[in-house]
């Protein structure tokens, strides 16, 4: 099983927030190393790999969200054009001239996001971004009647993009945020299958992160972990961004430090990286929030959490770009961290 291939399939599959069900089989089949797989009421997929320690074993939860940002049909115009709204945060400027997949009532359809042509725009308009409300989807329908046979208001739309293999181990595509994190969990499980570990490991592909970290809330409540590790994407170095707001690609994960990161987990993660010669970056994170770590931390009576960030360029666009080796490094780092855990360390997490 090559996790990289699983990652490619996950990226290309649709799974807008709240509609992640198409991903479940891909993830389950991509993870032969789990002892058990189940879903909860919100649709989180929970993979369990049992530890070899005596019961009760410490519980480590790894969380990465599988949902992606997308679009939702809001109106069918009389000429057959489709109006839409967004699910999750899109920069309106990346949507123009994108190809999309409409998940219609009779299957999927290709469409293009259009706007009125430049030559009939007023002078000065060309320097301005085309506004979200002026965009529409053209799926080749000649009338509203034709459109309504295939599409309904409320149908979901994903961006259409295959994974591109760039130079070296760089890949580009859609929904790497946060299927990259899901792939890191699979990589971690694969490494764990080759080492002994005391803790039970719950790998969770969470739902609805992009609309408010919702899947992490219920799955953490259900699992009651001792340690929560959120794996999400972080802003990778790219043109127009300063060094202090980014993590460098090809240097392993960012290990976050900040209010939502337990200091002892941070210290142990850094030690583990050094011990196993896994490269990493320090990722100062002054504002908690924006990732599943935020939701996990305050579940029940509180969970010691940490956040690992896989550096990603062009986040929330359909050309998200990363170095696959960073996903592997993240998986390996988590596995070695878990292999080194014992009861004593876990008990120490509540002692300040």
């Amino acid at each position, binding site marked *: 099983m090559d996790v990289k291939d699983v990652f490619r399939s996950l990226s290309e599959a649709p799974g807008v927030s709240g509609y992640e069900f198409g991903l479940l089989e891909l993830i389950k089949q991509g993870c032969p190393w789990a002892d058990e797989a189940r879903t909860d009421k919100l649709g989180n997929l929970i993979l369990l790999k049992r530890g070899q320690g005596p019961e009760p074993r410490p519980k480590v939860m790894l969380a990465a969200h599988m949902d992606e940002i997308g679009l939702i049909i809001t109106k069918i*115009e009389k*000429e*057959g*054009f489709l*109006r839409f709204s967004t699910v999750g*945060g*899109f*920069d*309106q*400027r*990346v949507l*123009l*001239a*994108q*190809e999309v997949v409409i998940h219609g009532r009779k299957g999927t*359809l*290709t469409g*293009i996001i*259009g*706007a*009125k*042509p*430049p*030559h*009939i725009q007023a002078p000065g308009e*060309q*320097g*301005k*971004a*085309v506004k979200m409300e*002026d965009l*529409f989807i*053209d*799926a*080749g329908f*000649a009338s509203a009647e*034709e459109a309504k046979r295939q599409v309904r208001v409320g149908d979901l739309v994903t961006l259409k*993009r295959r994974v*591109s*293999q*760039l*130079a*070296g181990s*760089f890949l*580009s595509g859609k929904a790497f945020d946060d299927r990259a994190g899901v792939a890191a969990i699979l990589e971690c499980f694969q490494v764990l299958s080759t080492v002994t570990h005391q803790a039970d490991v719950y790998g969770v592909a969470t739902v609805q992160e992009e609309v408010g970290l919702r899947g992490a809330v219920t799955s953490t409540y259900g699992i009651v972990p001792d340690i929560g590790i959120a794996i999400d994407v972080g*802003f990778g170095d*790219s*043109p*127009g*961004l300063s060094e202090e*707001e980014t993590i460098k690609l090809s240097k392993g994960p960012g290990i976050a430090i900040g209010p939502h990161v337990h200091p002892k987990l941070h210290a142990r993660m850094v030690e583990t990286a050094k011990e196993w010669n896994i490269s990493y970056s320090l990722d100062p994170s002054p504002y908690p929030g*924006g990732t599943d770590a935020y939701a996990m931390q305050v579940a029940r009576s509180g969970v010691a959490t940490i956040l690992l960030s896989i550096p990603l*360029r*062009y*986040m*929330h*666009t*359909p*050309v998200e*770009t990363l170095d696959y080796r960073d996903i592997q490094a993240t998986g390996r780092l988590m596995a070695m961290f878990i292999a080194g855990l014992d009861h004593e360390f876990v008990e120490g997490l509540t002692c300040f």
Partner: protein
Amino acid sequence: MLLARLTQANGAPGQEDEVRDLIRAAIEPHVQIVKTDALGNLLAIKNPDAPGPKVMLAAHMDEVALMVVGIDGDGYLKFRPIGGVDPRVLVAKTVVVGRKKVPGVIGSKPIHLQRPEEREKAFTIREMVIDIGAKNREEAEKLVQLGEIAYFTTEYEELGENRVKAKALDDRVGCALLIRLLQEEVSFPLIAAFTVQEEVGLRGAGVAAYQVEPDLALVLEGTTASDVPGTDDHKQATALGEGPAISVMDRSVIPNPELVQELLALAAEKGIKVQVRRSTAGGTDAGQIQLSRAGVKVAVISVPCRYIHSPAAVMCKDDFEGAYQLVKHYLARLEERAGLS
């Protein structure tokens, strides 16, 4: 399908080789002479020595694209458009670069790190780069050279009941029509000119017309369709599904009025749905052909295409078929008039 292969071939102005090779292979069985000139125009000639009107059909092979003009220290490619490209359509698209067809992406700053007012401003070409995943300049230079071309990667696909999505429909639709029309049996000299460099100023067409010395020329194009939300009816240059568009005037040419009327009358007679192009913007190869030597009577027949000069355009197959029927009937009419049949 021929149009699919034509649109998926790459041909920036001056680098039309892939398109030319495809066309050459498709037309060779149907014509007596195939030749190229110093600019790269491909001329296909039927009945070179026959009497009668010498008729030229023209379509351009080139498409708008991006040229790599710089490679920065981090291995990103700087680029400029060749031909008219609205920078706004480039954001977050995939491309292939150069002879090695190196995959690349045009990224943009994540929304999370933007100030709200930034989102109202369009990205400029100077702000954008192509990311090929190279670690630095040296690695990038191994894959791409300055002056190489980046192309959109859009695949040909059918949409709805009778529509098509593809890149470079402007003007591979014209090329596809010409290839089909060359299979018609006529007795007069018929010359198909597949021209180069239309998108950078109608460079090939004049040179081609000079060699052909036609009595009459029809230019087959893909033209802007603006029948989309937000556009008033009277500003819609053409609309999909209304048939091929016949030009009365654009920035480059006033097509011969008699010829225009004749085409409109012929369409009515044969029951072919046509529309008059309702914009005077834009230019076509007809602008150069009309000025060749002592002048040439020209007309322009276009297949309406939405979103031209962007990664993916959309056309209606009925309009394409209508354009074919109209020109075919016109050639038959010429044949009758010359007393050849």
